[in-house]
Structures are given as C-alpha cells and as structure tokens.
C-alpha cells in the first residue's frame, strides 16, 4: 500500500467517487498496465478505472475485480456513426463491463438538434436498462449555456439521468458549467465533471453542486492533499 492512510475510512469514502485511468489514442497497452498495476499496488479503492475497449483484457487481468472498469464509447470524438457506437456498446454489454459513458454525436449538439440527441440517448438507454450505468457525454466546453441546458433536457427526455460534462483529454469542466446544470436539474441528473480537475479546491467546488463522481488523472495528488487537510501522517510513503 502506498500510504497507510489509504485504509482510513475518510480517505476510502473520498476515493470512492473518483474515476482514474488511461485513455487516448496515443496510449499504449504498456501505459494501461503501468497505471493499473500502480493503482492495484497502491491499495487505493477508487470508483472505477477507465480504459478503452481494446485495453479491457489487460486492465481486467491486472485489476481482477479490485475496482470497477469504465469504458467510454465513441471516445473522444463522438462523431463515429451511431451504428458503430452501438456495436461498441453491444460488445461492452457482452463483456459485462461495470460502467460506461457515451459520447453523443457532437454535430447534433452544435446544431441544436435536440430531437436527435434525445433519440440517440433513448436508443442507448434502452439497451443499458438495468444492466449498465451509462453517462451521456456532451462536451460542454463546445456549447453555450443555453445549449448545455437543452442538451441535459434532451438527455433526461431520452431516459438517461447521468451527464459527463466533458471527455477530459484536453477538455476541462468548469465550476460554472456544473453549477448551471445543478441549478436547472438538481435531483434529475447526476453530474460527472471530467477534465482539468487537479486539486482539492476544485473538488470541493463540485461537491457543493451535489457531485458524487469525478474523473481526474490527478487522483493521487488530490487524495494526498485531502489526507494532509485531515492531518494524516504522510511518513509511510513507500514504493507503488
């Protein structure tokens, strides 16, 4: 275990809201193996490890049930055709994956084609019902406030209740974007900030908006920061 304080219930509860992983076209299987091994050895019990579908066997092999596996669909572009994204979803359902997110067709979002957003969401959620927790990705940085609200409305009308604000991967989620969705849809949609979340202060801001899932590549640093705030001893640092 990297730090003895990873076993502290306060750290465990805090860690239980984080997604962390290795995503992106330039990432290799070696990257996945390295990060998954580091996570497993750290003993840090996060919500889910994120990886791409092709990396699933490697992640599963290393993590062996240690945490949930989250695999995004249509990541990060969203602009592959619906049939291809549904093929990915079918594959992941067959793999009994634990958690996923679905990049909506961004052209529909940018064109204010909310009927198409709703229909795409409905198709996905009908396949996932009672099986796979699914977040719809809206890439909010590309949208203005009105579009973010309309996108969430279409998602809810399409039968989903989770929105991932961005893919990360260079796209960040702002407090203002999360606050906007929270103001309009409190209790109707579960908000997942993702991207550019690097410190405890940012996490605290999102918690004020009822957030319970956060995607961050800086999870170890954020947890170290929280442990320091709690006054937990950092002297047991060892090799991961």
């Amino acid at each position: 275990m990297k730090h003895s304080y990873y076993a502290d219930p306060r750290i465990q509860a805090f860690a239980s809201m984080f997604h962390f992983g290795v995503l992106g076209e330039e990432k290799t299987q070696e990257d996945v193996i390295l990060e998954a091994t580091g996570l497993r050895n750290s003993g840090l019990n996060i919500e889910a490890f994120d990886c791409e579908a092709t990396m699933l066997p490697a992640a599963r092999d290393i993590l062996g049930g240690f945490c949930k596996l989250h695999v995004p669909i249509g990541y990060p572009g969203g602009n592959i055709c619906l049939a291809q994204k549904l093929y990915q979803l079918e594959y992941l359902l067959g793999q009994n994956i634990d958690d996923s997110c679905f990049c909506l067709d961004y052209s529909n979002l940018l064109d204010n084609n909310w009927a198409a957003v709703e229909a795409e969401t409905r198709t996905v959620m009908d396949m996932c019902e009672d099986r796979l927790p699914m977040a719809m990705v809206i890439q909010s940085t590309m949208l203005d406030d009105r579009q973010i609200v309309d996108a969430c409305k279409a998602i809810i009308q399409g039968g989903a209740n989770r929105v991932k604000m961005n893919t990360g991967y260079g796209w960040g989620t702002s407090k203002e974007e999360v606050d906007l969705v929270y103001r309009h849809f409190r209790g109707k949609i579960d908000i997942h900030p993702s991207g550019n979340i690097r410190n405890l202060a940012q996490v605290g801001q999102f918690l004020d908006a009822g957030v319970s899932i956060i995607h961050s590549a800086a999870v170890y640093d954020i947890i170290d920061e929280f442990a320091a705030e709690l006054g937990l001893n950092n002297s047991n640092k060892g090799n991961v």
Partner: protein
Amino acid sequence: MNSLNDDQSFQIIVRLMVNDLAASARQMADQFGFRAEQADLTVRALPGDLTMLRMRRLNQVFELVQSNDSSLGHGPIDHVALNAVDVDSAVIAVLAKWGKLDPDISPDGAADIPEFWNAGTRFVFMQGPGTARIEFCHKIEDDACRVQKLKVNLAGHDHIGIHCTDVDQSRSFYEDLNFKVIGDFLIPTPDGDIPVCFLKRGDFCVELFSTPALRNGQIQYAETPLWNALILEDGQVSASKELIGPDGEIINIIPTPVNADFYMNSGGA
C-alpha cells in the same frame, strides 16, 4: 475495558441477512460506496465459500451474512439511515446506477418531514440488498460544512430506525443501554399519529417510531428480518451478551476490540 472513552469506543454494526452475499456486497459497493473492511477482499472477487462480510462507509459498518431463508423481510430493525448533504443528488446518483427507490415509502423520491428538529428533515428510502431499507437523510438546519469536512455528499451513519409497537417501552430499553433522548416528535397522519423518539450514544443514534399500521396489526414483522441484529461494540463492557429488545430485535453487546483501527466522529442525527 479499554482506554478509549465512550464516544470513541462505542459503535453500532448492523447485521444484514442476504440470500446472495456476493451480489449484495457488490450492490453495497457500487450503489452506496461501501468497502470491504478486510483490505484484501474486493467485492468483485470474493471467495466462493464466504458467509460473512463486513463493509464500511465512514462510521457505518454493515455485517452481511449469507442466509438460505427465502422469506427474509422487514422486521423491527426497519432501516439504516446514511447522512446525505444533498439528498436529491445522492438519490439520482444511485438511480443512475440502476438502484431503486423503496416503492412502499418513497415511490416518488425525496420528501420532507417538517416536524423534525428545527427546520425539518429531507429524506428518501432506497432499496438495499434484498429490498432492505436504506434511508438517506439530511437535517435541513445543518449547514453544508460537513460536505467540506468529509468531502463526500453521501456520508456515514445518521441513525438506525426501529419500528416499534410502543415507543415509550422501547425508549426505556435503549436508555438502559446508555442512550440519551435527543428529540421527541409526533407526526400526524390520517390513520393516526406516529410518535418518534431519537436517542443517541456517542456518535450513534437510534430512531424509535411507531406506525398505526403496526399498532393495529395491519402489518407484521417478517419471521427472519433483513436487518437482523444490532451489534454494539462497547468499551464499557468486559463480556459479550445477547439481549432481545421489546419488539424482538436482537442486540449483541460485545467489548470493543482494543486494536480497532478507526473510530469516526462524523456526526449523525
């Protein structure tokens, strides 16, 4: 007896009978954020012969016990409540993981009980393993400082709800176990009043309530309750004993293990 004071050495572990231990552990982890107490156990890879698993979220520990009894149902230990800063957000987070609302109590989601405390309580009942009731609740007079202290929306123990036939009789029983009354309320309903009494010991709270339906015999306890027993770890006792509460609830009192790692002071009702 150990050197911890009562607040530190006292905790209540709630035993939950389940028909599928692995699936129940997974549900507790995935939907409610609980973790196996034994660090080497992960809920997705439990040993096949495991018959008991303790799971913790902050200061609330559940003891999941495998049972082959197919008639598990609601008993006098009616529910366990977790403290939520934002109940509505906590609910949608669980629903998004295909969790379910309790259809008997919260079919429409979160609601308020204005009679409780100074400003009321917002609450919801979710279905845990085998339909065991898990409540999320928030005292509205509380400010949001807890979320910034614990850095979670859904926290740990808030209270344990005991559905009793006679609140006064149960109050006397729990007072004998060193619980102190912290609140008495009366909720009027068309079918009759629901008296409610909250008692606290250390960081742990029990809610005694009596519904007209139970008093009139319209509902009865299941023979084997889902929430099956309260395990009181008590630093003030030196030997284990089992008590039976006024409505048949099982209370196991055991000395607090001296090497227990964590005692949380994260607040409750």
